[in-house]
């Protein structure tokens, strides 16, 4: 069992979730509430990681993070080390390819809110922040929870993008998914099976949790 790969995966998933979910709430709420000309394009860009082969996305991120790109150069100048094949580079890539998992559940939750609830709160004198905190958030929290769980679980399981951008450096960029691949290549089937079983159990538990929560919320709203 490769504990360091599991620890790295959990760390990457935790950071990704912590950074991305607040961003997802802001973007999801904006997309649910506002109409603007390029809204379809923005939604398509956010959803792109869902349909793009991970290697394609990984390739573009590798190019964008490399020392030859402006982003890679600026990062190297500021931090003193390259962005590619580093944990920070992996995190940045993880934030990008997890965007749809953080945004879409939140957006759907905000879209399901009747529009006049916010307006009613304003007409009662509640500020926008108080309206969000006391009225909107309690009604969309299962969407936010879904976003958290999906982002976390998807980061744990991501393979293609991680391999392209992070490489396979033990302790630095080798996640559990890549470690499983390594074990299979090295014919260490028993270890690969154990790590796969852990990922399977975790993924099943998280997805079940989301469905159970969503069903409970739906029942509560219906009765």
């Amino acid at each position: 069992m490769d504990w360091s790969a599991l620890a790295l995966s959990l760390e990457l998933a935790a950071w990704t979730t912590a950074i991305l979910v607040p961003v997802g709430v802001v973007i999801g709420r904006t997309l649910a509430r506002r109409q603007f000309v390029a809204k379809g394009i923005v939604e398509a860009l956010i959803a792109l990681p869902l349909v793009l082969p991970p290697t394609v996305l990984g390739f573009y991120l590798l190019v964008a993070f490399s020392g030859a790109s402006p982003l890679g150069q600026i990062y190297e100048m500021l931090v003193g080390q390259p962005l590619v094949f580093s944990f920070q580079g992996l995190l940045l890539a993880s934030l990008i390819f997890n965007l749809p998992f953080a945004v879409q559940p939140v957006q759907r939750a905000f879209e399901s809110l009747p529009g006049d609830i916010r307006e009613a709160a304003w007409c009662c004198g509640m500020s926008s922040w108080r309206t969000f905190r006391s009225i909107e958030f309690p009604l969309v929290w299962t969407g936010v929870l879904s976003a958290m769980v999906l982002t976390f679980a998807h980061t744990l399981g991501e393979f293609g993008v991680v391999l392209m951008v992070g490489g396979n450096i033990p302790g630095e960029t080798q996640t559990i998914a890549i470690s499983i691949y390594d074990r299979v290549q090295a014919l260490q089937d028993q270890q690969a099976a154990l790590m796969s079983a852990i990922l399977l159990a975790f993924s099943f538990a998280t997805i079940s949790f989301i469905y159970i929560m969503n069903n409970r919320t739906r029942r509560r709203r219906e009765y």
Partner: protein
Amino acid sequence: MNTDNTAGLHVHLKQAAPISLDAEFHCATGELIVLVGPSGSGKSTILRCIAGLTMAKTGVVRFNETAWLDTDLGIHLAPQKRSVGMVFQHYALFPHLSALDNITVVLNEASRNNREQRARELLSFVNLQGLESRRPSELSGGQQQRVALARSLARDPEVLLLDEPFSAVDQITRRKLQLELARLRQQLKMPIVLVTHDLDEACILADRMCVLHHGRSLQAGAPADVMSRPDSDSVARLVGLTNVFAGEVIKQQSEPQITLLRWANYTLECRHRPEIRPGETVSWIIPPQQVILHRRDRPSRGERENPVEGVIRDFVVLGGDVSITMFVEDNPDLPLSLTLSSHVAYRNHLGMGEHITVSLLAHGIHLMPQR
């Protein structure tokens, strides 16, 4: 933009798009004005402009001396800064909170105890004691409406706005809630603006009603005045009046004081309107109740008053009354409605195709100069 400085709520809104608006009205403190008009007439948009939820291109919304909106001066206060309470059409209650918490959550009092006490007072004001812990989904439509009303009063608003507040409940509950509002408003010393498409509701509740069409305020006045003396044929049709015709004033007579009107092949004596010049084309109405049937068995002196002949082309029994439409001189372009008690209709052997003569009572004819 000119504004009326008298106390109360003054509204003057104007825009061409996205929804055409050209509305102006005033609502004094303690007065209930009903904005009435068909769907799409801009009623709810006007209410939203007063609340600050929608901004009109140009306009003024002023309460007493305070401008909530003045596009000339660049003033547009947020809804939170306007002292309004608003009841939404579908109530917009917070579904995750109990009836009590729907109110406590909007209150600003520092302590939870004070907030709860005030919320209980408001719920008891709308007769909802005992249901404090129920969520909106556990309340009937009428009870939800009362929670919405209580919540709208929580911030002690200076203006109350009601957007079709009775449209989502059944007829019996609606009548009950209307009576309750009529009772409660005696204690609410503030301008109240109510939006409805229901004319009966407008007539029951309004001190004044403002008739809207395509965003334009066509006429404002006491319901009885608007219903009996509309300013134009448009208003007459919007408030559901039948017997709307066009004619030409041919003479102003001083003794007795009457105005003579040419209509079809008749010269009608009308209520005196000296300001209308002879030769002017006017619209005119007569309520069905002012059209009197000539009895076949016993002619009377009153039959000399504007006698008109025609053929019955529609005959509908409605409870104890009969609604009759006759085509004057059997001309389908001149349908004249009248209402009779059913026993009068049967005694006179009235029915489809029967030839009848009626009198149009002069004092019931209302002339409307065409603009």
